[in-house]
């Protein structure tokens, strides 16, 4: 039983780690465009 719980905890932790890295490197957060860039739509 202890082994099963420990393994479940390992996989949950692994899932969090993978999710974090995916979010960091591949998931682009939508940001409100502000002035200052050519494509901001203001100019």
């Amino acid at each position, binding site marked *: 039983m*202890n*082994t099963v*719980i*420990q*393994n479940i*905890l*390992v996989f949950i*932790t*692994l899932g*969090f*780690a*993978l999710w*974090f*890295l995916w979010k*960091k*490197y591949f998931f682009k957060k939508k*940001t*409100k*465009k*502000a*002035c*200052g*860039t050519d494509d*901001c739509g*203001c*100019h």
Partner: protein
Amino acid sequence: MSKQINIALIGNPNTGKTSVFNALTGLNQKVGNYPGITVEKKEGICKLPRGVKAHIIDLPGTYSLNASSLDENVVIELLLNKNDKDFPDVAVVVSDVENLKRNLLLFTQIKDLEIPAILVINMADRMKYKGISLDIDFLEQELKTKIAVVSTRKKEGIDNLKHLISNYKDISTAPCLNASEIDKDYFDKLRKAFPNQLLYKLWLVITQDVNFGKTDRNEIEAIASFKTKSKSDLKRLQQKETIKRYQFINNTLKKGQTIDVSQAKDLRTKFDRILTHKVWGYLIFFLILLTIFQAIYDWSTVPMDFIDGVFANLSDWVKNTLPAGAFTNLLAEGIISGLGGIVIFIPQIAFLFLFIAILEESGYMSRVVFLMDRIMRRFGLSGKSIVPLISGTACAIPAIMATRNIESWKERLITILVTPFTTCSARLPVYLIIIALVIPEGRFLGLSYQALTLMLLYLLGFGTAVVSAYILNKILKIKSKTFFVVEMPNYKLPLFKNVALTVLEKTKSFVFGAGKIILAISIILWFLASYGPGEQFNNAENIVKTEFASQNLDQEELNQKIASHKLEHSFIGIAGHAIEPVIRPLGYDWKIGIAIVSSFAAREVFVGTLATIYSVGNDDEDTIKNRMAGEVNPILGGPLFNFASGISLLLFYAFAMQCMSTLAIVKKETNSWKWPILQLVIMTAIAYITALIAFQFLK
């Protein structure tokens, strides 16, 4: 409950704006970015008398409201947009008592926007050294404002400033001068075409590439009743406006400011003569660098050994205390070891930033920029390229963003391409651990070999950047012109609070920014090293027992053999063996190969990865350094981290583009994948070839 006041802190660069911000907000501040762009946004909260709270934005330094860079655009766009949630109720314009004339140009422009503006005259403690005296009442009357004379160094005048801020409604919003006099007819037509708009805002919209509210330049141009002027005419009018402003400022200061040169006790000129001297200047800079690197080593040893020991004990304690199993092993071997690999470098990184902050705060760094410009020119770089190259010692990402103030595209592109060669703080952990393992502890003329090696690596990075720039300047056929302007601030004793905040902020961002990635990668690596496919991994115990049945190994030796067999047939072992043929000529084993691959996310992950891989299945309570020192080269025998493989690794990391985030920012700044891909391929090739040559010669 009272309303929160919005304050914009505005001023020329080097007026001590950040010192005023720190004095007002203390630790109640946070750093972020403006939405969609990468200009740093510093915000803080200040408690004012009568329980009023003020939200303060420390805007980027700007010389005027005539924007020429992204940083300056941010200032103008905030001041023009009343609908912005950060639009200021009051602008606090910070000026330097020694450069009032130049600083007041921006102040008079802000006054024309009819925003209540308080003038802060900072660095008041320098008045007696320069023989300056001010008639504050007269200045307040002429400039139609309230003035706070402040010395952040001596902590004087801040309470008065807070008092003025809380009473901002009493400040006149009338402009100092009538800018429309530069061309009455033109401004009258403009006023008639847009009767509900503030005239100076319209003028800024016409002359700048910014907008405000619902009015933009195209709309103004589309109105039939108003015809705007040609670009060259507008430029001429802008010049006229600036001259008019300076005439007003000159007249005001003639009566409001007295400078008695005979009372001045100025050391600046004497210092400048030595520190920017074409021989002594470079020698002093070199000696300062030498001292810094020596101090980084000498002062960090004790805290680093302490941290290393604490993590080793913690890992051991977790293993002995928690119930045995996979998750306990993950905590002890993956998470704690991986974190130990980053926390251990806090002392050295803090010391490095401490010295950089002191050099910047004292005004010496600007002299270095000026000094190095003489060299930079010869290599096709702008004097302004020095700023990214020096900031690159912290991190290539903000350094690459800092190239935005280089006007020439060719010089900017070259600076972007070569900046990743400078030794960033992420390389520091890799250098430190490898140097500690392969460079002897002896001393030469009182300087440790290890400190000298570290300095050589910094010089190598800088030298490579400059030489690459020279080559790129010859290869790239892009025509452009540029000029170099640098502000030389006065020398001053660094403020402890400013230095401490910089060190805290930089160290925190290093630990938390990199720490989260390292933690995530450590968890994944531990998993990959602790699980594997097929019979060889799952039946490792039986296979090893059968294989060594005749050798009568004791239980400890047998456990070591099983752990080693499992690691070799784990997911990570299989991947490591697949890349081993490529990295073996450099003197690395498959474990180092995995560390190199994983450190592509961030270079500092290298140490954490090795700490994790070497911990898996290892029950010894030992430090990272000792574990690495104990590794044996499976092919050549002897220590895996010897002089030849160590130098090879140092050179590999000195040249390789091991940073995903830098590639992303290069793509963003150049708006093309061509440059980052070229950068990756060329830098990796240089790294591989130099590491190969070094190992083959030294082995």
